[in-house]
């Protein structure tokens, strides 16, 4: 987009530091990374070229619910991203801690820093992660900071409260890190990567030089050919002894002693939670994940806890293979401020202060991918706002990113929000390989992608459409059904794949995969597409900002109150607010339409 941008961070070296496990992707998250790639984000390439283990999840299931996941070299991931930022044109990188925001007439005008340097900006994007008034817990021990070894942003919260932005607390946790050479891997089960890595970045629409080669814009960057020299993860289980240690020390856990009141994620419970809530489950699976190639540090996935350090040690050493484990860093829980995201427009701009945008954990989400998606949308819209352009709003019928943001701004969240494929009503349309096809128009409208790749993306979409038409209308010589019928029969285990023309076989693999997916699942996909079409009309109707719902005749009071609270952006968003019924939407539609007509008459 070419906007002049300043990136302020408390520590430049920890840009893109993975605070939790060293992995990108997985179910729904992997889909999001590919969507980010389709919108010109950096995450996909960065994860690909620093990947040390690649796995395609749900390979035995259908394409819609398959998702790539990669273990990345934690430091390589972080440093390559830092390098990319340094090389980015129009981007100025600077190290300082933001201590407060400056406002004028309900608008943000810039930031203040700990160095007493102030910066002015037309728009400001806030991404505080877990650092806002952050407090870490290990048993009774408490340390201020958003990540072990890092600082906390203490004074910034006051700036939000100054303009009426409400803050609440959330909690998350992370497991201990172990020294690899103190572990006995012979007692664990190996998990290897896929021989043929599934990458996040779309490579068929890019020049090789723009992709996995370490050369970009003539600069050498950290990274390697994806899939080369992969490393393994290791699986082990807790024992009855682990359970006993945990159960006997429950009162020492700040979660159970009442020390921590804030809500943690249900899908990422601490080990004490697992033993308490699923007492009949004899053992819990743990993964030992290498943090990188140039370190002997291991992440123990599944053992998040806030128990005291001595209990952690005993617990770890009750696990097969970890009897002599040395802990490099303890597990801890962290509590932090977040701003309930119903205070945002779908552009991620604050409703309370103009030109102020929020992204990531401050919006109550969890996960690198969810954060990156919001960062991208908030960034694009901060530029759009500064230039007086329309915001980029990705619909929940278009992408997981759309579902994510719509859920956040419409319903808010009570726990750190993570994406699941089940959150998408139209999951079957969201197979990861179709991200470019789905988001092409946004990338084009907002200038997120270089012309050359955009043209290739357009060509790919056209090819896909044309071939599907061909497959559904032509019949193989002397046969009854179309090629499409053949593919569908084949998916039910009947018959062999039809012999396809040479031209088709020359198509890039991912394009063919996409075409065959559309053909094979046609019935279901068309049904979902029809549902999407029906909803599109009301998605297009924008609700004027500041609409006084109490003045709309015929609207039920209960609905008027809910609408006023959420202040939806579009009629589509309004229809998803619980308690607002279809007749309210009809009334609202007519109100908006009659005002629009009246206005256009007087023009």
């Amino acid at each position, binding site marked *: 987009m070419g906007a002049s941008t300043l990136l302020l961070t408390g520590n430049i070296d920890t840009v893109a530091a993975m605070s939790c496990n060293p992995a990108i992707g*997985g*179910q*729904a998250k992997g889909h999001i990374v590919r969507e980010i790639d389709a919108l010109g984000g950096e995450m996909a390439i960065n994860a690909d070229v620093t990947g040390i283990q690649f796995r395609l*999840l*749900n390979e035995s*299931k*259908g394409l*819609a*619910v398959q998702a790539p*996941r990669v273990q990345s070299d934690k430091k390589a991931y972080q440093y390559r991203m830092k390098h990319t930022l340094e090389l980015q044109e129009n981007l100025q990188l600077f190290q300082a801690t933001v201590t407060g925001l400056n406002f004028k007439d309900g608008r943000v005008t810039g930031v203040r820093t700990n160095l007493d340097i102030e910066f002015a900006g037309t728009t400001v994007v806030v991404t505080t992660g877990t650092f806002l008034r952050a407090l870490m817990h290990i048993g009774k021990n408490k340390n201020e900071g958003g990540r072990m070894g890092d600082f906390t942003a203490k004074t910034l919260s006051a700036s939000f409260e100054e303009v009426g932005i409400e803050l609440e607390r959330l909690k998350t946790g992370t497991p201990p890190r172990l020294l690899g050479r103190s572990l006995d891997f012979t007692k664990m089960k190996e998990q290897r990567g896929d021989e043929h890595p599934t990458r996040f970045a779309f490579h068929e629409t890019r020049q090789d030089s723009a992709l996995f080669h370490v050369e970009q814009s003539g600069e050498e960057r950290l990274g390697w050919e994806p899939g080369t020299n992969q490393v393994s993860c290791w699986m082990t289980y807790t024992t009855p002894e682990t359970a006993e240690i945990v159960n006997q020390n429950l009162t020492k856990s700040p979660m159970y002693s009442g020390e921590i009141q804030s809500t943690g*994620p*249900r*899908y*990422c*419970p601490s080990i004490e*939670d*697992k033993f308490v*809530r*699923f007492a009949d*489950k004899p053992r*819990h*699976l*743990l*993964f030992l994940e290498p943090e990188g190639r140039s370190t002997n540090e291991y992440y123990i*996935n*599944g053992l*998040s806890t806030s128990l005291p350090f001595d209990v952690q040690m005993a617990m770890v050493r009750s696990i097969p293979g970890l009897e002599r484990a040395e802990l490099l860093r303890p597990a801890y829980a962290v509590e932090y401020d977040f701003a309930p995201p119903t205070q945002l427009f779908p552009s991620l701009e604050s409703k309370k202060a103009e030109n102020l945008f929020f992204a990531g954990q401050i919006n109550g989400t969890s996960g690198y991918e969810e954060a990156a998606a919001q960062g991208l949308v908030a960034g694009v819209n901060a530029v759009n706002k500064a230039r007086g352009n329309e915001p980029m709003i990705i619909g929940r019928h278009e992408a997981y990113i759309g579902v994510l943001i719509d859920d956040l701004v419409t319903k808010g969240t009570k726990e750190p929000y993570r994406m*699941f*494929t*089940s*959150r998408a*009503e139209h*999951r*079957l349309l969201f197979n990861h390989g179709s991200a470019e096809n789905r988001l092409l128009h946004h990338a084009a409208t907002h200038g997120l992608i270089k012309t050359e790749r955009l043209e290739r993306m357009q060509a790919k979409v056209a090819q896909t459409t044309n071939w599907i038409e061909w497959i559904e209308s032509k019949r193989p010589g002397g046969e009854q059904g179309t090629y499409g019928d053949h593919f569908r029969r084949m998916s*039910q285990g009947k018959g062999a794949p039809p012999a396809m023309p040479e031209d088709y076989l020359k198509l890039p693999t991912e394009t063919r995969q996409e075409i065959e997916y559309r053909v094979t*699942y046609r019935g*279901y996909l068309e049904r*979902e597409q*029809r549902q999407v*079409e*029906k909803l599109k*009309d009301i998605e297009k*109707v924008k609700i004027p900002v500041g609409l006084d719902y109490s003045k709309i*005749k*015929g*609207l*039920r009071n209960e609905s008027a109150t809910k609408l006023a609270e959420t202040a939806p952006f579009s009629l589509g968003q309004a229809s998803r607010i*619980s308690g607002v*019924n*279809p*007749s309210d939407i*009809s*009334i609202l*539609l*007519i*109100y908006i*339409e*009659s005002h629009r*007509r*009246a206005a256009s008459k007087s023009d």
Partner: protein
Amino acid sequence: MSHSVDTIAAPATPAGTSAIAVVRVSGPLCRDIATSVFADALEPRVASHQPYRDVTGNEIDDVLVTFFAGPRSYTGEDVLEISTHGNPVITQLVLNDLFKRECRAAEAGEFTRRAFLNGQIDLSQAEAVMDLIHARSARAVAAANQQLQGSLGRHLTRLTDDLLLGLARVEAYIDFPEEDLPDEDRRVVQDLLSNVLRGTERLLATHRYGELLRDGIKTVILGEPNAGKSSLLNALVGRERALVSNQPGTTRDYLEETVMVGPHCLRLIDTAGLNPEPGEVERLGIEKTIERLREADLVLLVLDATHPAPALPAEVSAELNSTTTLVVLNKGDLLGQKSPETIGPDGFDSIQISALTHDGMTELDQRIIALADNFSPSDSSDQIAVNARHAEALRHATQALESAGQHLANRGPTELLAADLRGTLDAFGEIGGRIENEAMLDRLFETFCIGK
């Protein structure tokens, strides 16, 4: 606004209160429907009289149908107006058939909304249109709530619970492939889903209002011999009313007729005369009568107004309830100016008629309608719309569940199985209100230990 993509249908007149009921259809499917339902081609804006054939080819009714080509129509879209005989059963059958042809039940005020958005209604009327939608919706919501408070709501809650559990068990294996979940046991899902399917089918079949519409309100005519039960039945049936069906009592030992009284469909059941001092054979008759009474929705207790009423057998009076029983004092023509010799049991409403001269029959209709209104709400066009929508949703649920069952049986793709289960959930949501994904996630995290 662009033209709508879907076609909507709904009753356009309050059903049952007039001789004619109009069903209105609007949207792109109208032309297709016109050609597939009606044998003769329709000329725009010209009413034509022809049979309505449903998807299976059966004639539902002789109707008057008019096609309006958009934009010269009420909504500005293609519109069909189908006038049937003013019988709610026919209206319901026509609506059901239109839904099978991919129409959707119109939301309250949706025709007017479309008319407005397509510029058919002037800007100055916007407020009036909003008021109208508000009023229609309030009535529709009341009608829907009335149904949900009954057994429909209770059953639906239970079915939804089972469905959510089943879905959670499927979704867990899609969204958490890396978790240490127990081996996927589809039998549990299978069992849950068979329960849900059975329950949904039963709901569809026994759905109270549907039953009343299909079978009529069971109305038992009771009384001593020669009080005029049969004359009353003949009087109710014999006048100018649409006769829905005539089941001769060949296989039964009682006479049964179905008639329309106002908006209500009544199944009249005649019983053997009650002798105050029954003999051996008559005892048997009384037992049968008691059986009928137990199934009855309404009771017409016929007494001879010219002499004091004999006492009813105790076991019979025990079955009578003053809220569902009307005492009909017959033979009013023989009384002249005199007062009736009896007014029936204490606490029961009564009315004087003459089944012979038809005196008082109009008043009797009103009293029957008032009693029957307790079973089905008085504003029956709202109720029919709601009812048709519910039945349609239950049918969609059934179809989706059957498709899910096939995926389970063939070990088909999990995500398609999930898609069908979500389709079922959406269909349930059409009846009882949208079911959020959060409800499924709650079950999922309760059932499985998720989180590495």
